[in-house]
């Protein structure tokens, strides 16, 4: 589903955020990307979502070399992904329903189909009853679940999440991770960046640790901790 071939990403005026990184994530896998802040987790996700392009090397998503996509190719690529953000990025002036409907409207889904799918997604995150409320009237955990509903409403095959539990207490974090687990069970490939290692003890899935822009082997792990 995702393959990195010798990928280096360098930002102007600083060192390599990722250096010579190669790995592969299979379809249907659940992968947790860990590492301290500045280790390159966000950069890796940005390369997948084409928010950034690799300086060297190739990034394949669903068999496509996304680094080669033209500017026009970026929106269709992003529509194939579900993205969950740490700060959820909900639009404050629209209702929960309208926020979740946004990817469907962007994708040009028909007006009749939209309510059905929005409610299905809200139902999956347990917020069906709050569809009319604006995001600010919801709790932080609920807002994050709205963000997840928005990410899955188009039924993407790949979902990426950047610190989805960063703003949540341990209980809510676990709840969110379990939610991700359920999506993974129905076949969605998941790539979740998190620094919350204690949480990972309680969920299953492959761990991939980044350190200083490189993948760290289990032995490196031992060195760090």
């Amino acid at each position, binding site marked *: 589903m995702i393959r990195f071939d010798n990928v280096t990403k360098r930002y102007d005026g600083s060192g390599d955020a990722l250096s010579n990184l190669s790995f592969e994530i299979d379809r249907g896998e659940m992968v947790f990307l860990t590492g301290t802040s500045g280790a390159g987790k966000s950069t890796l996700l940005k390369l997948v979502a084409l*928010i950034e392009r690799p300086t060297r090397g190739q990034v394949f998503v669903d068999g496509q070399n996304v680094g080669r996509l033209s500017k026009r190719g970026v*929106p269709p690529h*992003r*529509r194939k992904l579900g993205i969950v953000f740490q700060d959820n990025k909900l*639009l404050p002036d629209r209702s929960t329903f309208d926020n979740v409907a*946004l*990817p469907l409207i*962007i994708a040009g889904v028909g007006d009749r189909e939209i309510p059905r799918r929005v409610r299905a997604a809200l139902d999956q995150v347990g917020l069906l009853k709050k569809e009319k409320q604006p995001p600010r009237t919801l709790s932080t955990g609920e807002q994050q679940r709205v963000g997840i509903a*928005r990410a899955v409403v188009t039924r993407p095959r790949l979902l990426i999440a950047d610190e989805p539990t960063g703003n949540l207490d341990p209980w809510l974090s676990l709840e969110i991770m379990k939610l991700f687990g359920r999506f993974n069970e129905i076949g969605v490939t998941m790539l979740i960046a998190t620094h919350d290692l204690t949480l990972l003890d309680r969920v299953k899935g492959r761990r991939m640790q980044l350190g200083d822009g490189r993948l760290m082997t289990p032995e490196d792990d031992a060195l760090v901790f």
Partner: protein
Amino acid sequence: MHVRNCTSALQELGAQPVATSLTVCVIGIALALPASLNLLVQNGRNVAGGWESVRDFSIYMAIDSKPESADTLAAELRAMNIIDSVVVTLAEDALVEFRESSGLGEVLDTLESNPLPHTLVVRPTDATSANELAELGAELTDRANIDIVKIDTQWVERLNAILDFMRRVVLIASVLLIFAVIIIVGNTIRLDIQSRRDEIEVLKLLGASDGFVRRPFLYVGLWYGVIGGVVALFLMITGGWLLAAPLERLIGLYESELSLLGLDGSTALMIIGGGVLSGWGGAWSAVSRHLAAIQPK
């Protein structure tokens, strides 16, 4: 999709009534100004056109010339292909007429001789140019038995020149004001884009195409143009209504049967069309410069 964009753009404008009405008023004024000026100049041309055919000139013969010489001159002029008709008023007839119309009969009786000359009122054909008339006038003035040739068409030409000049002024003003509308709409949309930066970023992250992000702003620009055009029409109709009474009095004073050009359907359509084009154009200029700069980080 377009219908939804179109109606939500209108709702968006309605959500900020004060800002929207100020903007559309400025657009309305900017559109109404050149349109009204144009109407004014067109009416001026109509009036001048009405006078242009009045190019009759008068020939006053020398006081001592004989009635026959007037008839001879009239016959000579009638034979020219640049002359349409000639009316001869002999001195005696003129005196009778003057006596009756002026009421100065007794004063005139004290005069030893008739002070009035024989007069010819000459009407050139429509095809006659101003130059031909001037040449004829000069030639006639030189003759011994002709006192004065009064060709007074110069002011009509001057008026026409002024109107041509005015038309150019209106054209320049129109172009400038249309630009003003484009700039006003462009700037309004630019501010709108800036205030919705976060939203645009989210839309792009969710895979919205440039067209998708652009469309709502273009429709807002379109609505500014349409509503601005309607405001312009309203201003012009109100202005016309306020000017109607004094204009009628003025025309009445000239005993003229001029009919004035008002705001007709095609002018109205042009104003709305101008509004739509400049509103859309302004929005385009703003989105093409500012939307691409907003990229999610």
